[in-house]
């Protein structure tokens, strides 16, 4: 691990200012992903801004019937909150489908959104990777791509976003609240928060340098039946090959989002509209334009069958 200096932020804006005014600075909250990457020197910050003392660890009711989740609420606490279990079951299910009990006790709501990809070439510093070192190429395109994206990638990067929580947040149309180094705040719709790689795969999100996530807000509950079906190589503690987040209403309508298939949580509102006509109709739209590799072509079928299983369960 490279040496770094360390400070504890006192306020969200001070954290943002500290990160923006110091070269190669990173926020650290749970640290479960950042420290892992620092040990292998994929991440080499010269300065860490510890945000764990900022509070931001409560879940509050909003005036319009939703919830405002502080950025430092731990994954365990968000999954266990009685309001989340009752009204946002898909979010609770997605959270407990990810990582291990130990990691969920540390990992935060804001940090989970900012996880880096688990593409093996991003982790292997001996290999080309445009996300890790822009301009070096993408070793995954001709390499081991079983875990990687089938849609939304580019000729520069086919990494997937690893978060389960973010898939549920996308399904629920959450908003990410931030503070900027100048003290201004903004709310970024989750649909616009994660970005597609294009020719700048090193940039994962819409955040500008120093911008700090303070909360994630959930709109009022959708009702319906909530599902998060995750298909992976082990029964527990593994990243998704395909995951399906869905809320299905009594009339057969609802929403669906996919994890494990794209550089960001994957949802298209026009695909939601096809839900009453079944999984095949949904996937015809949701995965329209998919460009799988020979190693991950199976994900196209797997996604459709996983959604079919969800829809069958919804009718029970």
């Amino acid at each position: 691990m490279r040496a770094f200096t360390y400070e504890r932020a006192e306020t969200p804006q001070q954290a943002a200012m500290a990160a923006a005014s110091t070269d190669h600075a990173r926020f650290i909250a749970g640290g479960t992903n950042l420290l892992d990457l620092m040990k292998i020197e994929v991440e080499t910050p010269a300065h860490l801004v510890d945000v764990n003392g900022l509070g931001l660890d409560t879940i509050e009711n909003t005036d319009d019937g939703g919830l405002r989740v502080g950025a430092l609420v731990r994954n365990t606490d968000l999954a266990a909150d009685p309001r989340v279990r009752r009204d946002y079951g898909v979010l609770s299910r997605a959270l407990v489908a990810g990582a291990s009990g130990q990691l969920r006790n540390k990992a935060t709501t804001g940090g989970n959104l900012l996880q880096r990809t688990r593409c093996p070439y991003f982790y292997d510093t001996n290999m080309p990777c445009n996300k890790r070192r822009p301009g070096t190429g993408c070793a995954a395109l001709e390499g081991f791509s079983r875990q990687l994206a089938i849609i939304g990638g580019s000729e520069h990067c086919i990494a997937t976003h690893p978060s389960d929580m973010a898939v549920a947040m996308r399904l629920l149309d959450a908003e990410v609240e931030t503070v900027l180094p100048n003290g201004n705040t903004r709310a970024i719709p989750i649909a616009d928060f994660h970005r597609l790689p294009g020719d700048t795969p090193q940039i994962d999100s819409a955040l500008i340098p120093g911008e700090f996530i303070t909360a994630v807000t959930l709109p009022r509950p959708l009702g319906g039946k909530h599902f998060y079906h995750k298909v992976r190589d082990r029964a527990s503690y593994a990243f998704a090959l395909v995951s399906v987040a869905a809320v299905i209403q009594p009339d057969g309508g609802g929403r669906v989002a996919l994890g494990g298939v794209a550089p960001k949580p994957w949802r298209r509102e026009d695909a939601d509209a096809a839900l009453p006509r079944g999984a095949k109709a949904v996937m015809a739209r949701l995965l329209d334009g998919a460009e799988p590799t020979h190693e991950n072509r199976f994900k196209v079928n797997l996604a459709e069958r996983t959604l079919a299983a969800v829809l069958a369960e919804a009718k029970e």
Partner: protein
Amino acid sequence: MSQHSRFKITRRALMIVGAASAASLGLPRLATAGRDGESPTSAPAADDKAATAEVAFTVNGVPRRFTADTRLTLLDALREQLQLTGTKKGCDHGQCGACTVMVNGRRVNACLSLAVMHEGDEITTVEGLGTPDNLDPMQAAFIEHDGYQCGYCTPGQICSAKATLEEIRAGVPSHVTADLNAPMKVTPEEIRERMSGNICRCGAYANILDAVQDVAGGQS
């Protein structure tokens, strides 16, 4: 002064980083001469020099305070600095669970946490659970059910097992919980899922499960 501002980075290390940052940003920030009078603009790059900070937390009821490299993980602090070698280093990447300890009553991977981030925390390691003469019930159950072969993962397994039962009691759901809104139950399926962050290379899982169920049965 708040608890969170009571840490110190050594002045020399901060100067070095500050000088490097100020030079690259063209800012006057911290651009004063270093302690030894060398020019700040000629200071070595930050990655050549360790920064240190004060670490202060309680381990198994004993207050500890020392100065450490900011890179020191909680795991290495316990093992190397405090000689509490019960907590094991397996993968050092949060994948195996051998380093599981309790921080303020919650299980975490000590390898994925910086010592400097634990100001004021109460840390419990396997040494704090029981002693050979006065075993914790979970330790006794692992012995009774032969919940190990080589024993390397065992301290982490025991810490995690205790936390697993506490998390079920506290109503934390898991991936295999059928009804998110009903009272949580201790079942073999729940224990297996909740213990998935602890890997046992020897494959003692069946006996570990028996040990945890035994303790759970005794509590209910």
